[in-house]
């Protein structure tokens, strides 16, 4: 933390703000310091930290002081962190909160998240090194280290070892993930086999399977993402879920349809509905399967499929003759 200097926090001429994040705590190596809760700003030239309660308390360190950075993922009760390894402070550094430090790195704790983006932008700035080509107005301490100088930086061996460890751990994580994935897929495969066997039994015993059981079976297939092998359908390839969805759609689409002359392409509907939902979106197949049930459920909207394959939803109430004339024109507008 002795690399930091007091600053006004105002950006210099030629210095641009890249990203900022609230709720960041600074640590001097492993030790907590009083800089507990602040806004961390990344500019093209510096890393600036301003206390959220006391705006006068503002410190900064030039990006040229940074040797390298690494991520520390969050844990239980611990925020995600970025560890910033720094060159030793230059002798002509402006005064700061600490005269000395036994650590050559600091930690940024992201108590309110934002570390992924911040890390990304910081890495970018470290690569681009824009501070070198954009000199700023203030006489800042610029670390004149060149590549050769960097090699001389303190503790470079320890740093390299850390990079290697991190790479190994990433590799280990990935291979563990693949292993777990393979095991999971084995179990999924068993489910597929079982469903095929049930489907065959259903086919053989035509008429002996109750509607209820068929519906149950279909919902199991839906959960697993297994294609429905049973050809004899009661409600198309739909399930209870699709039936409910169909009813929901009839409600949601009434007004939009009226606003658009009673007709909308399925693509438009897909976008409209999913944009409105935000989360737990519908798959294209969910939408199609639900729409196929509209007519049989006697809902006020219905699905129409043209010879070209284009699919639209239209209001049942609209006069057919009226629609034929303007339908062609509307379809060209709707789908291009």
């Amino acid at each position: 933390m002795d690399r930091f200097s007091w600053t006004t926090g105002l950006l210099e001429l030629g210095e641009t703000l890249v990203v900022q994040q609230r709720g960041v705590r600074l640590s001097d190596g492993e030790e907590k310091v009083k800089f507990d809760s602040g806004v961390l700003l990344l500019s093209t030239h510096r890393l600036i930290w301003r206390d959220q309660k006391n705006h006068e308390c503002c410190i900064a360190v030039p990006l040229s002081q940074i040797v390298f950075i690494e991520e520390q993922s969050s844990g239980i009760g611990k925020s995600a962190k970025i560890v910033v390894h720094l060159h030793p402070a230059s002798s002509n550094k402006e005064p700061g909160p600490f005269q000395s430090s036994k650590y050559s790195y600091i930690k940024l704790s992201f108590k309110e998240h934002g570390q992924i983006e911040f890390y990304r932008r910081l890495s970018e700035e470290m690569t681009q090194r824009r501070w070198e080509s954009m000199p700023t107005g203030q006489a800042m301490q610029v670390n004149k280290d060149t590549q050769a100088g960097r090699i001389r930086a303190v503790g470079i061996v320890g740093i390299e070892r850390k990079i290697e460890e991190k790479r190994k751990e990433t590799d280990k994580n990935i291979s563990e993930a693949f292993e777990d994935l393979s095991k999971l897929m084995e179990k999924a495969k068993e489910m597929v086999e079982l469903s095929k066997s049930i489907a065959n039994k259903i086919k053989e015993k035509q008429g002996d399977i109750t509607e209820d059981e068929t519906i149950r079976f279909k919902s199991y297939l839906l959960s697993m993402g297994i294609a429905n092998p049973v050809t004899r359908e009661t409600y198309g390839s739909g399930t209870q879920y699709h039936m409910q969805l169909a009813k929901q759609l009839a409600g949601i689409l009434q007004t939009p349809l009226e606003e658009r002359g009673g007709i909308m392409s399925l693509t438009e509907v897909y976008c409209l509905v999913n944009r409105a939902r935000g989360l737990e979106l519908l798959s294209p197949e969910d939408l199609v399967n639900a729409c196929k049930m509209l007519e049989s459920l006697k809902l006020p909207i219905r699905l129409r499929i043209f010879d070209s394959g284009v699919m639209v939803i239209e209001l049942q109430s609209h006069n057919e003759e009226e629609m034929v004339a303007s339908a062609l024109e509307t379809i060209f507008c709707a789908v291009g």
Partner: protein
Amino acid sequence: MHRRGVGAGAIAKRKLAEAKYKERGTVLAEDQLAQMSKQLDMFKTNLEEFASKHKQEIRKNPEFRVQFQDMCATIGVDPLASGKGFWSEMLGVGDFYYELGVQIIEVCLALKHRNGGLITLEELHQQVLKGRGKFAQDVSQDDLLRAIKKLKVLGNGFGIIPVGGTFLIQSVPAELNMDHTVVLQLAEKKGFVTVSEIKSSLKWETERAKQVLEHLLKEGMAWLDEQAPEEPQYWLPALFTELYSQEITPEEAKEAIP
């Protein structure tokens, strides 16, 4: 089946036998369904465990997503079939791809007036990334292709055409047969094509070449340059994005969808 005897007794006996057979048949299916239900619950637990350890991996790592998708396809499972599926609910893969689908549709709609509904995968990728903004999860070209394959089911004419090592994405239900596709592939090298080139490369007659080009013109996928030195050139705006000085902003793209 033979009729053993005609009397009421024989008929009643047969009916009883049939009923018993039906019952047994139903019981068999019920057994298997119960078994499937139990196994499903077990699988759900396994998937939950997997998700708790590796959900991030799927979100962050495009290569892992590819592996995951390929494995699913191999065993006959479609994790993107329904938003109600376990995969979607627990791993969040569904929302990732369905939202991507919306973004793809919006970009294609916004640019359709320029390229007639044909766009390179590269340009689509760029525009989608721009629209998603800086804080969104990264998407790969493979992700786009998978999302597009899912969109086809909406009957909107989305198609993927391989050209010169990459892909053209078609987003309008225009009829593009083998002839059209081959001409597109020919045009990919320079961004334009002429009747003579088609004739010499593909050994077609003039009439066939002209028909294909006329169709592409009509669909707005090709533009005609009659002032070219030797003969008219048919340019494909989809392949020539450097010409455009104006770019579509995410806001404009959103406005294109009502």
